[in-house]
């Protein structure tokens, strides 16, 4: 499925300084849905080029990284359990740098 990933707040520095990534992600084997949990590990493998620890901690984003799914706080949609659909826009913003 086609997704738009946006990185901000310094996170784009971890992926070739490119803020917007149009990507194609396949459903994981034997699953009907794509969850944020799967997407995060996909992003970590396929999009993040350096210092993945700035982006993730354990199996989720590092505390201080804000996630918006279609302009909505992912804390409202179940965080890692959020189901992603075709054409969704997912924004990752680090709050950790700069004032």
């Amino acid at each position, binding site marked *: 499925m086609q997704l738009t990933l946006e990185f*901000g*707040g*310094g996170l*784009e*520095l971890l992926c070739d300084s490119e*803020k917007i990534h149009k990507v194609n992600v396949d459903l994981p084997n034997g699953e*009907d849905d794509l969850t944020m949990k799967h997407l995060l590990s996909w992003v970590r493998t396929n999009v993040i080029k350096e*210092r993945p620890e*700035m982006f993730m901690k354990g199996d989720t984003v*590092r*505390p*201080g990284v*804000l996630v*918006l*799914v279609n*302009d*909505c*706080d992912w*804390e*409202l*949609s*179940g965080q890692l*359990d*959020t*189901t992603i*659909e075709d054409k969704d826009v997912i*924004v990752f*913003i680090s*709050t*950790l*740098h*700069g*004032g």
Partner: protein
Amino acid sequence: MEASEGKSKKPGASRLCCLCNQRRPVLKRPKTLQQICRECFYEVFEEEIHQVIVGNRLFKSGERVAIGASGGKDSTVLAYVLSELNRRHNYGLDLFLLSIDEGITGYRDDSLETVKRNEVQYGLPLQILSYKDLYGWTMDEIVKMIGLKNNCTFCGVFRRQALDRGAALLKVDKLVTGHNADDIAETVLLNILRGDIARLSRCTSITTGEDGPIPRCKPFKYTYEKEIVIYPSLLKLNFDTLTYDIRMLISRSWTTSPPNVSIYSPNAYRGFAREFIKDLERLRPRAILDIIKSGEDFRIATTTKMPEQGTCERCGYISSQKWCKACVLLEGLNRGLPKMGIGRARGGVNGDHKKETKKPPASAAKSLESKQCGSLDF
């Protein structure tokens, strides 16, 4: 399979905003855990800051107020919100943006661009002062003189004073900075860890330096970083392309304090405290406000000898010594003795740092003073 067809793909999306009960929520507020919609978010975000300003009497009508503008997210959102509130509630403030150019090649260029655009977009006048204006030296010149090893001393000391010196130079009544609740909680923690009671009692005050030449205040003291970050991120849907532009420029701008800025500011331990705060926030978002509260409620026994706060004989900045750290460092630079005032170097104007100094109150203060690098003062 069939059963799940009808229910919303995104749990929570079906619920309504708990403030207006009409619209779809877009944000879970860390402060209250309420799920609120975009419109209500703007309202409560701005209204709370207004209440903080009014409740603490941060400003008086007619005051000339400098907004310390780094081009980063906090100061950019602060500039935007403050100019809005000033208009909406007739504060009667003469607001302008104050930016400092350290003179580090390539470093500020981007963020100064941002501040310049803020000037146009919010109709706020902009003053840029350089280290050259404030100290007579650019950071690059200092590095050339002393080498890369010691410049964190200069950077920390000069940066700490830059806004105050700039504000004094421009004769403002007040200086506001974008320090947010997360910053303050982090500072409380660090001051506790360091046993720096002098700063601990000061760092939670919403206004500091009222006895000095220019008071400083922090209207975002109770504002969560998460909300500051999300504020411009959600703007684009509500407004036209102009604000979309603001959003892009804000999200672009806070990349200008990138991880590698530490070339001149090695605040690594601050990073650990920050991470700890963020871990706590994830477990229990209230923790940030609770830490601020415990900092505020910290009582210091009256028998404790607190460092006496004097002012620098040269520049008037707060200093427990005859000359403030910046003036000592500058004297060294100007005399071609750049090591003066760094670490154990002897023969400085304030005497040997390791020995008891001539001024008794100052020596009592010595043990309470923190290291020069990465000061935790706001």
